[in-house]
């Protein structure tokens, strides 16, 4: 059967336009450019913009000109400087250094990405000699900021290595003069007062996993075997301990407190509201609603704990609206991924969040060090190796030079596979200035670094989050929402040079 469909062509005078990308968000047209600037236009104004018939006294004309969307009067040098500032992370070198102090862990979470080993497997502990080599290697980075992030297994089980790396890196830094940060991503179930006081006294940031109410947390994060207890109760106890001690020591609780990450399983989706309430009760002002990664146990347990990208996005939007409502009612709480995108959208800078940038930070913004000193471009590479595929091992702290690692063909391949300006589907996507792809995710999902953009869960997730934010900004007639969003992107002094822990 034959019939016709109708589509109206857009008249365009390309000589009058600067480079831009666009999308329709509701009844508005969103323009973005390489500097990350954006403007909304009505559909008639968009047509006038394209055909160079926008009235000289149109209220948005000056803004469009300043942002570089119009060719006439374009300040090329100014635009170049804004792009340069937006991409300031390029060439800085790896700043995030994930150190796997041990694979041993007392928990066995259903979605474990980290390839845990039983507590008896002491051969999976990093040695002090390897730890020294890690520090010597990592501090060769040209980056002025350097964050040692301790991961595992449960990293505090090998606490001597944490202490050694903190002390040795600080000693070494007397000559290097870098801005050093240390953070530990811990399940808090192997914590004791001695470790806690040492972490507090030595300014080691503490981040834990908190997946929601007691039954949900304990269902996600199994703790069985000798010495097992109630994981959720331990997390509650130690969050309270750390936060109390920070206050007793006179530290600003807005800056010094335990941060928490939430990994979303199918059990979380219908209970997101309870999760938000719990975080509020605990005074945790940043809720980071993170989807499952296709690594480790999560691949085996997907039938039980997994969900579709559409189900995640729908829940995410509901949670985002609830968090916005809480802000409108005076609560100070943010959603972490939204804050990362908003920093890119609303400020002239990029937060250099290694997982959402172009190119992705693997190898160029971060490195990961396995317990045996093997180097990976990111912790994801180490997780893939733990699943039996050592494709992303790029060297060893005792045998590789820093130049060999950062110029490794694998690092280059990952950079090429994540440079949005050259990827089909991304290069002309309105979200390109704010987005990032994850080649190692693609590799796990489809068997190649590139993947097909519309078929990758990360593309669907990022597009859903971006559309959710822009559609709300488009409807923000009085600017009240933008005011809230701008508060979300204010950086606190303590975290200025610190990446929130990103993997686990």
């Amino acid at each position: 059967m034959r019939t016709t469909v109708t589509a109206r062509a857009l008249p365009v005078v390309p000589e009058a336009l600067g480079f831009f990308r666009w999308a329709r968000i509701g009844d508005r047209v969103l323009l973005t450019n390489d500097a990350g600037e954006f403007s909304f236009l009505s559909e008639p104004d968009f047509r006038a913009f394209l055909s160079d018939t926008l009235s000289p006294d149109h209220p948005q004309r000056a803004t469009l000109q300043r942002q570089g969307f119009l060719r006439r009067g374009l300040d090329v040098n100014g635009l170049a400087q804004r792009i340069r500032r937006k991409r300031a992370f390029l060439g800085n070198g790896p700043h995030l250094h994930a150190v796997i102090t041990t694979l041993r862990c007392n928990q066995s979470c259903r979605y474990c990405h980290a390839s845990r080993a039983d507590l008896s497997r002491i051969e999976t502990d990093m040695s002090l000699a390897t730890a020294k080599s890690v520090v010597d290697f990592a501090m060769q980075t040209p980056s002025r900021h350097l964050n040692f992030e301790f991961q595992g297994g449960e990293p505090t089980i090998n606490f001597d290595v944490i202490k050694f790396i903190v002390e040795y890196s600080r000693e070494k830094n007397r000559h290097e003069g870098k801005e050093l940060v240390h953070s530990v991503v811990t399940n808090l179930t192997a914590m004791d007062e001695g470790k806690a006081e040492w972490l507090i006294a030595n300014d080691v940031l503490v981040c834990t996993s908190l997946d929601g109410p007691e039954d949900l947390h304990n269902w996600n994060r199994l703790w069985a075997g000798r010495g097992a207890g109630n994981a959720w109760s331990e997390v509650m106890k130690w969050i309270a301990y750390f936060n109390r001690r920070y206050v007793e020591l006179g530290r600003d609780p807005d800056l010094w407190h335990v941060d928490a990450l939430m990994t979303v399983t199918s059990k979380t989706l219908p209970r997101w509201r309870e999760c938000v309430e719990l975080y509020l009760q605990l005074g945790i002002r940043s809720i980071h609603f993170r989807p499952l990664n296709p690594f480790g146990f999560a691949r085996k347990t997907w039938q039980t704990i997994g969900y579709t990208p559409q189900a995640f996005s729908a829940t995410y939007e509901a949670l985002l609206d609830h968090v916005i409502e809480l802000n409108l009612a005076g609560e100070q709480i943010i959603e972490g991924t939204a804050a990362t995108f908003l920093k890119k959208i609303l400020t002239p800078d990029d937060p250099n969040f290694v997982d959402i940038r172009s190119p992705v930070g693997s190898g160029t913004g971060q490195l990961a060090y396995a317990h045996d000193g093997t180097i990976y471009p990111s912790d994801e590479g180490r997780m893939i190796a733990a699943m039996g595929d050592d494709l992303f091992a790029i060297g060893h702290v005792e045998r590789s030079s820093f130049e060999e690692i950062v110029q490794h063909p694998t690092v280059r391949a990952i950079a090429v596979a994540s440079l949005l300006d050259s990827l089909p589907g991304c290069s002309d996507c309105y979200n390109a200035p704010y987005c990032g792809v994850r080649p190692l995710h693609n590799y796990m999902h489809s068997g190649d670094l590139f993947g097909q953009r519309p078929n990758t869960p990360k593309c669907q997730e990022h597009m859903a989050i971006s559309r959710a934010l822009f559609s709300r900004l488009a409807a923000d007639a009085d600017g009240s929402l933008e005011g809230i969003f701008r508060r979300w992107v204010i950086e606190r002094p303590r975290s200025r040079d610190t990446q929130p822990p990103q993997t686990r």
Partner: protein
Amino acid sequence: MTAPEPPSELEPAGDIPEELTITLDERRVSFVLDEELYPRDAIYGAAYLFVDRAWIFLTRPADRQVEVRLKPKDVDRVERGTLEALAGEFANELLNQVLRQRVGASTRALREYTLARALFTDDTQSSIDALLAELDAEELEEDELEISVPWRTEPTSADPEGTGG
């Protein structure tokens, strides 16, 4: 008299019709596109954005023509309205792709220059450019010794001290 140049790969040669004739059967929709109206890269670009929703088959029924056949992946929900909507969305995306290509081609040199300036010009060069711009803007005869020429630039994340060095 010289022969007219063949149409550019990037630019449609004529006005794009507002109606696209489509052929429907029970499970798929197809239509033929003229490459002189829809550059091949625009067809590829539009097709790529549908890979999550449809199986896409491209064939060449005649010179400079491309036939697009779309078969929805969600086979349980295929009905005439769904197929027409899919074809309509594809037609809209084709127009978007044509526009993207025209803007991309028109701004290519400008964009390459801007990005080269952004990424491959060092701060020293930027500060010299800024200084020259100021010199152009100022009337030097009012400041013969150029005492007022600033050597500091606005602080940036790359240069927090604003030394310009």
